[in-house]
């Protein structure tokens, strides 16, 4: 998926200096219920940001999410996201206000990314608020948003429904380098 994204960017005549990437960005999610806290982090997120067009993409291997409890990680992979069947999740979209950001100037900018979120084989259109911190000419993207497992056909058995919240709090924190 990343190769297709990169190829599309190349074909449209994008200059290398417009592209920033990371191969080890971070995405995490958590939920709290009176019964159980769920907390997972993925440090192998691949992402590309085109500062000229505002196009932004994230490619995530679901098996790279790690939980403190091994049994929880096993259930997540085998029963909920079915990672053998759907090993990848992704976001492909665009920053709505890329033109308003001066990526050559250090600062913190509020942004909104709109696009397609794909998880468990299902794609949904989402809009996510976040910030871009530019430091030394390099951007860092941070965002927090909520995601409902049922929107992606992730079935939580009623037996454990009180341990798993209906929405997950997702956090994105990616530091980019020049391509």
């Amino acid at each position: 998926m990343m190769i297709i994204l990169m190829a599309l960017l190349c074909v449209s005549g994008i200059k290398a200096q417009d592209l920033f990437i990371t191969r080890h960005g971070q995405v995490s999610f958590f939920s709290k219920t009176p019964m159980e806290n769920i907390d997972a982090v993925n440090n192998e997120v691949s992402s590309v940001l085109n500062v000229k067009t505002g196009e932004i993409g994230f490619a995530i291997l679901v098996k790279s999410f790690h939980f403190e409890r091994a049994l929880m990680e096993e259930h997540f992979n085998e029963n909920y996201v079915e990672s053998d069947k759907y090993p990848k999740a992704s976001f492909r979209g665009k920053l709505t206000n890329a033109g308003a950001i001066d990526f050559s100037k250090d600062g913190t900018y509020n942004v909104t990314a709109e696009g397609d979120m794909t998880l468990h084989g299902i794609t949904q259109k989402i809009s996510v608020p976040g910030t871009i911190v530019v430091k030394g000419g390099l951007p860092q993207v941070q965002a927090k948003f909520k995601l409902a497992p049922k929107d992606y056909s992730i079935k939580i058995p009623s037996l454990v429904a009180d341990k798993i919240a209906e929405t997950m709090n997702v956090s994105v924190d990616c530091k980019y380098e020049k391509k």
Partner: protein
Amino acid sequence: MAGLLCLVLIAAAVVIGYRMYNKPHRSAATEKAVELTAMRLAADYEKDENTANKKYLGNAVQVSGTVSEITLNQQNKPVIVLLGSDMSGVQCTLQADVHGIKKGDSVTIKGFCTGYLTDVIMDRCIVGR
């Protein structure tokens, strides 16, 4: 007699349940791994991702190869990329610090394959056999 048997069974169930609940994470150090070169692993994924996933996804893999890149991720864990093919390498996130490994070194890394993005991705890795 039946009461004692019941008690033993219940105790066994509790112990098994407790141990499952707290089961340890899979460890690259102890699990038997598929052994191959980084070049072969990258080539297999480039050729046919689905077939490669059937062989490697979620499994313990031991790759040998040349270090093309060594960096730290956002949790300060070392990330070593092994030379694969023209298009893809094998990116390995290590569990602990490694001293003295530099670009150009030949290394053997054991970990778990989580799939394929622009590189083949492995994590929970350790260096050495």
